[in-house]
């Protein structure tokens, strides 16, 4: 009798695992690309806008910097869902576009501060030295500060990318095409939530772990050129 139970359990386990596997494959094939594009889109909007904000804050400074600071803080206090709702219902564009713009704006507020922090720390360490060699201010920025700042900000930006990927799940609120929405649709169709949720978790996890190992690898390499994170 005990043997029978064991067999039943084993069969059930194998069934569940193959169900899980199939669901993962399904979500990957139908939803992963959309999520990745969404993430990449908002990341680069964030990078572009964030760079401009950082540039204005550092080079122009003064009142502009203070105003931008307040705008950034405002963007960082509003819940992402609300931002998406405001853009979706406010601008009457399709959900995918709304998601990219909304997440892009939020990401810009974070990326601007990351970039600003990195650039300011590179300036503090290297700007005077560059001037002493005879570079003009612009040359110092272009040849010394910007290259180092770009390299040094990579780990933090990779982290931001991973965070954005996870945030795309919120686009479910406006029905955008991405993995999480797909997973929930599957769950509603099958009346079963555990397998789809675990499947989509596995995918998120795999990507995030990949990104963090790349980031760790780069941090190690960066230490050689003196740009490590100071613990």
């Amino acid at each position, binding site marked *: 009798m005990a043997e029978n139970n064991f067999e039943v359990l084993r069969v059930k386990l194998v069934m569940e695992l193959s169900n899980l596997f199939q669901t993962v494959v399904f979500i990957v094939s139908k939803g992963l690309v959309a999520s990745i594009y969404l993430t990449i889109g908002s990341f680069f909007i964030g990078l572009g806008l964030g760079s401009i904000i950082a540039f204005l804050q550092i080079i122009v400074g003064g009142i502009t910097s203070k105003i931008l600071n307040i705008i950034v*803080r*405002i963007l*960082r*206090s*509003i*819940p*992402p*869902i*609300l931002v998406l*709702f*405001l853009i979706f*219902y*406010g601008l009457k564009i399709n959900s995918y576009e709304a998601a990219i713009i909304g997440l892009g704006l939020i990401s810009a507020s974070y990326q601007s501060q990351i970039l600003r922090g990195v650039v300011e720390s590179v300036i503090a360490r290297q700007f005077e030295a560059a001037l002493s060699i005879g570079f003009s201010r612009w040359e110092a920025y272009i040849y010394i500060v910007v290259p180092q700042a770009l390299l040094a900000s990579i780990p933090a930006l990779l982290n931001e990318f991973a965070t954005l990927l*996870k*945030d795309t*799940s*919120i686009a*479910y*609120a406006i029905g955008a095409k991405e993995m*999480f929405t797909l997973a*929930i649709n599957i*769950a509603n169709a099958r009346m*079963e*939530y*555990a397998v789809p*949720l*675990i499947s*989509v*978790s596995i995918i*998120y*996890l795999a990507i*995030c*772990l990949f990104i*963090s190992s790349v980031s760790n690898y780069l941090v190690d390499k960066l230490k050689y050129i003196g740009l490590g994170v100071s*613990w």
Partner: protein
Amino acid sequence: MTNLIDIIVNYGPSLAEAFKLTLELSFISFLLGFLGGIALATLNLLSPKHLKIFIRILIDLIRGTPMTVQLFFIYYALPTFGIKLDPFISALIAMSINSSVYQSEYLRTAINSIPRTQWEAALSLGFTKFSSWIHIVIHQVLRIALPALTNELIYIIKFSSIAYFVTLPELVYVAELIGSKTFAYIEVYMVVAFFYITVAFILSEIMEHIYKKLSVQGLTTSLT
């Protein structure tokens, strides 16, 4: 714009009620997250190697998946295993676990920044590793980690909005409800955004004040 005043007058009370719920959920989650974070950080500090690996796996699991997935799992998936929880408790548990993990990481960063020599001095006086942590190092760590922890509080208040998905009547959910009744979606959302922004700004100011009060020259500020 008359819509805006309309909203505030007619729905002010319900919004305030939802606001209260949002704050309750957020503060309790933050507190539980803080206690959990300290527990995790302490375990990580004092555990033997094999336990540390287990903790690391747990942390990576929570950090590598969106909070929305974790929330959905607790509210929608646990019932299949026999555990049915109401929206508030589900959101509370999901947010507390998530926050514990992140707060333990902030604490870990702060712990790593404490020079080994502070530990050595404590050990030389006769403290055990555990009592060195409790009586000496943790006081330094909390001061250093305070900015990161306040950011976490503001983040939680912001993200309490995902409880919208499990039909908890917090601010965003109620806002949508009002929106569907009045069709003045944008106006309600802006009122609600205003709530969030105000809370964030006020909290920042308070925490900055507390941080200044607790700062010790040489620990949280560089020696002049």
